[in-house]
């Protein structure tokens, strides 16, 4: 068995080596065979590697239609002169590595990007700095692409701005370890399936840190979304998994950490929602499981509209939020069990660490504020406290069924 695997490896090695022999390496730079990338591209064939030495290259639009590896040495600068798209990839298996792309053109008519991947599979974009681009990386009709370890920074204004990493009709993408600042949406997915967004940092973007539309069965894991116009929006998608992310300081009028709109079968696990105006805003969601998350210091930890059904919110910590749960109707088709609520005032006589009285996370005042937002001025006044206490004893206005039947006495270690 062992000998067999050695032989297999040997032959595999031979084939790989032969392929390498075929492929040439072209060097671009001052005093080198090629002084421009475009010239090198004309002379290369599929499978070649083009090494670009450090320097400033103003080459208008570079179109890559052969399967090549384009690699920078010490981050050469590709400049779009505020007029042109910088790189357009039309061939599969292309690698773009270690460049600095800057000043792409800006246009509302054409989608001008620093790197556009169009109808090309298995493309890898890695270790680049993209500065002042209109769209950062734009991927269309391309599957199995990897976008990793890039740093994108834009200086967008609301009227004219593109997204950082924009993906349209793709499958099986991997977007990892990128940082995106100052774009319109940090990462945008539309009709993208089976993809992973992992360990990215998306901050100070004008609209959303991450935006999902009609994108099914994706996962985003361990990302940080900070101070964006309003956090993350997941809309019209099913089977999205969201784990280990941090949603921080998404502040403002109608801003939220995570917006769920018309989505089904999602799983929200182990995320941290800190200092957002609204932690999670759920509208028309079905069969979502919200488990083991931490909601800390938000204005509203969760706003679950009456249009949501079959959602399970369990084993979360709700601490220091102004309001724990808000809703807009009396119909409740969701469960809120086994959470820790710091506002819980019940007791635990049988010492099983579960409170003996159910907890009602919707306060009367949060219903009042829902109807009349100006009433927020009266928050924490004695009268409002009296109202809330009375309502807790005799619930009349707050939804009868919205309660945690097994509130935890101590916060979970999350």
């Amino acid at each position, binding site marked *: 068995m062992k000998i067999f695997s050695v032989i297999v490896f040997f032959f595999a090695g031979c084939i790989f080596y032969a392929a390498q022999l075929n492929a040439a390496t072209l060097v671009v730079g001052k005093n080198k065979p090629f002084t421009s990338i475009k010239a090198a591209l004309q002379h290369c064939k599929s499978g070649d590697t083009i090494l670009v030495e450090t320097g400033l290259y103003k080459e208008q639009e570079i179109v890559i239609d052969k399967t090549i590896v384009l690699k920078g040495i010490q981050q050469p600068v590709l400049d779009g002169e505020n007029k042109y798209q910088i790189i357009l990839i039309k061939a599969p298996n292309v690698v773009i590595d270690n460049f600095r792309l800057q000043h792409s053109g800006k246009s509302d008519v054409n989608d001008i990007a620093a790197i556009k991947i169009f109808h090309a599979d298995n493309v890898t974009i890695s270790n680049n700095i993209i500065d002042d681009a209109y769209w950062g990386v734009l991927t269309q009709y391309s599957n199995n692409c990897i976008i990793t370890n890039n740093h994108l920074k834009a200086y967008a204004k609301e009227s004219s701005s593109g997204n950082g990493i924009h993906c349209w009709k793709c499958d099986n993408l991997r977007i990892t370890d990128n940082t995106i600042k100052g774009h319109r949406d940090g990462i945008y997915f539309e009709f993208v399936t089976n993809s992973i967004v992992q360990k990215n940092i998306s901050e100070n973007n004008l609209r959303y840190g991450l935006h999902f539309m009609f994108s099914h069965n994706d996962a985003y894991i361990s990302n940080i979304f900070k101070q964006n116009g309003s956090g993350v929006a997941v809309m019209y998608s099913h089977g999205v998994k969201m784990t280990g992310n941090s949603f921080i300081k998404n502040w403002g*009028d109608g801003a939220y950490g995570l917006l769920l709109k018309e989505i089904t079968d999602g799983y929200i696990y182990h995320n941290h929602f800190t200092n*957002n105006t609204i932690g999670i805003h759920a509208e028309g969601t079905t069969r979502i499981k919200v488990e083991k998350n931490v909601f800390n210091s938000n*204005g509203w930890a969760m706003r679950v509209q009456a249009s949501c059904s079959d959602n399970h919110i369990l084993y979360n910590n709700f601490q220091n939020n102004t309001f724990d749960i808000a809703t807009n109707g009396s119909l409740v088709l969701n469960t809120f069990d086994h959470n820790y609520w710091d506002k819980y005032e019940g007791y635990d006589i049988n010492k099983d660490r579960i409170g003996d009285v159910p907890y009602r996370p919707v306060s009367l005042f949060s219903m009042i504020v829902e109807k*009349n937002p100006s009433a*927020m001025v009266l928050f924490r*006044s*004695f009268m409002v406290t009296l109202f809330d206490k009375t309502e807790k004893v005799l619930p009349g206005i707050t939804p009868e069924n919205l309660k945690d039947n097994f509130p935890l006495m101590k916060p979970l270690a999350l």
Partner: protein
Amino acid sequence: MKKIIKYVTADILRNKIVLAYTVLLLIISFSVFALQDDASKGMLSLLNITLLIVPLMSVIFSAIYIYNSAEFIELLVSQPLKRKSIWLSLFYGLAAALSIAYFIGAGIPIIIYQPSATGFIMLGAGIILSIIFVAIALLAAVLTRDKAKGIGITILLWLYFALIFDGLILFILFQFEDYPLDKFMVFTSAFNPVDLCRILILLRMDVSALMGYTGAIFKDFFGSQTGSFVAVTVLLLWVIIPVWLSMKKFKKKDL
């Protein structure tokens, strides 16, 4: 004048009720901080005490003190002293004594457990509320000669500021809910020092929630430099106007 202030302050500080008030505040404050593992929850409990018990204590104690020292005041008036300085000394003495009581009773625990901007705003609010309600008590006491009636008025005033005013606001909010009331709300909050202090503290405590909706208007106004300046000025007016009115009355009063 200094002598009278000294005498009044010493007299009040020796008074067992103020001492008991200080100790009570101290016990409550330490226990709310010690019982909860989270200091900001302790601050919440302390907020209720600052907004309810502190004004109540100040207003009732000051009114009773003024009534009980009627003979002492008469004695002072018979001396070659200006009525203005007698009355102001009484005010300074009461204000100083109750502020010190609040500072020791609630301020020290705040400084120990929550030495943040929120904590200091709370401390400032507690002290200014103590002083404001001393001023209001002086006005009520000078207006009526009858002790029972005077104390009744002060209790009613406290009830008005602590509870009825907010009820009226809520009523107005719902009656005129179709109109934009945000600016009006900023304006009306000036008419209740308790509300004004509450909003100033709220802006620190619940900033995430207040950033949403119309809350942004409050944040924009009270969070800005001019806004805080206006708020502090209004609070000071709440001290100056009642004291000035009561002094005018006291000068002409037939004792």
